């Protein structure tokens, strides 16, 4: 097309020492536009009901097909109910969106794990568990928590709906290559400190915009010793410090996880894939634009007190008098605490709460429900607590049943709901009422995120469990038996 003749496009030169991010990115650059973005090829595209309908409308208006339907995988997760999923969705707009997703997938030959499918679940939970997320891939989805998949050594990030349309139309998007940041966490975390606490600690140190413009590689012994589920929690919240995404080099833990999957679509020779994946690591002399180092031994169980994920502190701490290194609190800071009904200098331990939510793409995997179960086993839910227990997928729900976790939850007075995004963004009925406090294992404590006026306190599954049985914000370390092996 002549109107684009002004843009100089060229192939990338091969650089010498590269980071893992460079290697994967450069391998997926179809062409670069001079002074402009790269044309980036996408290996895996996940879609869901909320951010895809307008993209399909766009294809229809242009009269074009989906270019590579086999590379897109769909699920219904954001707005679906977590009770009585076999019945028709009551909310008309939600029902319409879910139906449109089915129609669009049928029409274009896209694989859909819709409501009531035995493989349904939150997009960032089912992708890995069904073997669609593999090392070295570029992965996008119209959802900012796509960064989750970086745990497998992928470049995975959230995109807008127009970009969803670009991927459907051409399997490519236009992206400016971000800068590179390395975050190293050394040492061993203390008992009661989970991967959720590690990432919440990092965000509280560098703020919600501390990594804006960067793609992060996580490394260090406190990261490489984590399970895949725990790594996903870390990468998931990369976006909460502003990063486009975060990744971890694949290793034996990654390959073991993949090997245990029932099947991996598109991979015939697993061992030869592993030998290729083993090359996916940063060169020793590769340089990053910014490097940060943290000591895991300094991290305590974390909780947020404000209305962004950077407003977090150690559970036994007190709310800072001002944000960051400021001497005086800004109006934004005071507005945030006012919304939360909290004051600078307050301690949160012992503060009564009303709701507990465990689930979401951050902490809705089997290990999270095991960790929660270890705390509640043999105890009872506090009378003042309403608990929303929402598995991340049907597979997680099945696994909970198989391991006897459902029984433990029931005996402790907890009802387990059906999978979905649920109260993380409260698009369905699972809303926290105005003014009520919720200790939540999700990823965002924004104003109204869990319902208009809801007050969210982000924490790990075991901190949520401790709150659920005491009815107050409690230190999970008091509930951990030394011998028990709690999720790291």
């Amino acid at each position, binding site marked *: *097309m002549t*109107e*684009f003749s002004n*843009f100089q*496009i060229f192939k990338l030169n091969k650089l010498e020492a590269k980071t893992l991010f460079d290697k994967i990115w450069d*391998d997926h650059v*179809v*062409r670069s*536009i001079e*002074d*402009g*973005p790269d*044309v980036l*090829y996408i290996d895996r595209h996940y879609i869901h009901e909320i*951010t895809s*309908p*307008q993209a399909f*409308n766009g294809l229809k208006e*242009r009269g074009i097909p989906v270019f590579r339907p086999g590379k897109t995988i769909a699920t219904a997760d*954001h707005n679906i109910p977590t009770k009585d999923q076999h019945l028709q969705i009551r*909310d008309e*707009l939600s029902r319409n*969106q879910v139906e*449109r997703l089915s129609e669009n997938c049928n029409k274009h030959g896209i694989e859909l794990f819709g409501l009531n499918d035995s493989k349904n679940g939150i997009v960032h939970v089912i992708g890995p568990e069904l073997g669609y997320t*593999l090392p*070295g891939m570029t992965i996008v989805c*119209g959802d*900012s928590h796509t960064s989750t998949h970086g745990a497998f050594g992928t470049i995975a990030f959230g*995109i*807008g*709906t*127009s970009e969803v*349309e*670009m991927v459907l139309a*051409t*399997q*490519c*998007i*236009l992206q400016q290559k*971000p800068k590179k940041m390395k975050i190293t966490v050394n040492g061993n975390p203390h008992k009661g400190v989970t991967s959720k606490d590690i990432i919440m600690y990092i965000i509280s140190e560098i703020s*919600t*915009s501390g990594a*804006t413009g960067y793609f992060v590689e996580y490394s260090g012994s406190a990261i490489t010793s984590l399970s895949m589920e725990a790594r996903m929690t870390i990468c998931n919240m990369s976006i909460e410090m*502003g990063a486009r995404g975060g990744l971890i080099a694949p290793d034996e833990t990654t390959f073991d996880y993949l090997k245990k999957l029932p099947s991996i679509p598109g991979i015939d020779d697993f061992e030869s894939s592993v030998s290729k994946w083993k090359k*996916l690591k940063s060169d020793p002399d590769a340089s990053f634009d910014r490097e940060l180092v943290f000591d895991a031994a300094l991290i305590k169980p974390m909780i947020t007190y404000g209305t*962004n994920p*950077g407003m977090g502190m150690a559970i036994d701490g007190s709310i800072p008098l001002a944000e960051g290194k400021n001497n005086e609190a*800004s*109006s*934004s800071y005071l*507005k945030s605490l006012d919304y939360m009904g909290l004051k600078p200098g307050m301690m949160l331990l012992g503060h009564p709460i009303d709701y507990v939510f465990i689930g979401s793409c951050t902490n809705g995997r089997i290990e999270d429900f095991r960790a929660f179960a270890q705390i509640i086993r043999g105890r009872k839910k506090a009378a003042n607590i309403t608990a929303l227990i929402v598995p991340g997928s049907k597979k997680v729900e099945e696994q909970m049943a198989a391991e006897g976790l459902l029984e433990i939850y029931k005996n402790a007075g907890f009802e387990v709901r059906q999978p979905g995004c649920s109260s993380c*963004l*409260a*698009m369905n009925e699972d809303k926290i009422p105005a003014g009520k406090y919720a200790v939540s294992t999700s990823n*965002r404590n*924004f*104003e*109204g*995120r869990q319902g*208009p006026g809801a007050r969210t306190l982000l924490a790990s599954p075991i901190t949520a469990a401790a709150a659920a049985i005491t009815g107050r914000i409690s230190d999970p370390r008091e509930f951990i038996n030394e011998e028990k092996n709690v999720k790291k």
Partner: protein
Amino acid sequence: MPKVKFDILESTCVPLPFENVDTDQIIPARFLSATSREGFGDNLFRDWKYKKTGEKNSEFVLNNPRFSGKVLVAGKNFGSGSSREHAVWTIFDYGFRAVVSSFFADIFMNNCLINGLLPIVISEDLLKKLHDLIQKEPATKVKIDLDKQTFTIISSGDSVIFGINPYKKECLLKGLDDIDFLLSMKNIITGYETNRNLVK
């Protein structure tokens, strides 16, 4: 994807001097159950515009008749959080054509450029000065010239050059569309697919 052109804009401003305004505030998730791009504008900052009781919050800037215009002057780290492009559609649908801040979240900025809502980054000092000027004199006008990449506060004479990716600039000036561009490259994309290294 709509083809929107942008060249020169002269307008009064609406000030929103809060930091870390996330896309959940711009358009709460419960309003995302639509399947078209239109009609989101009424719900811009829905939970700040209305009180819990359902009445209009007269203290909120969008309900204040002193302030109007096509330029939203925001605070630092605007548009963080969810990737929802609906946030940009909502601001555009409400009538804004440019957003000014000292710092934008990545995905939000990308979504702005795709939809013809011009994100302009200025220094924290100038942003503070602009907020002060608007508060004192709501008729304060700014002029944005995309071709020259200049942002000018007309009354004070402050004028700065703002940055924009040259590709995106040309797309906005000419009303070009990313998908048309990518579609024009389909043969090259197919060629790439047949010669892959890491992932088959």
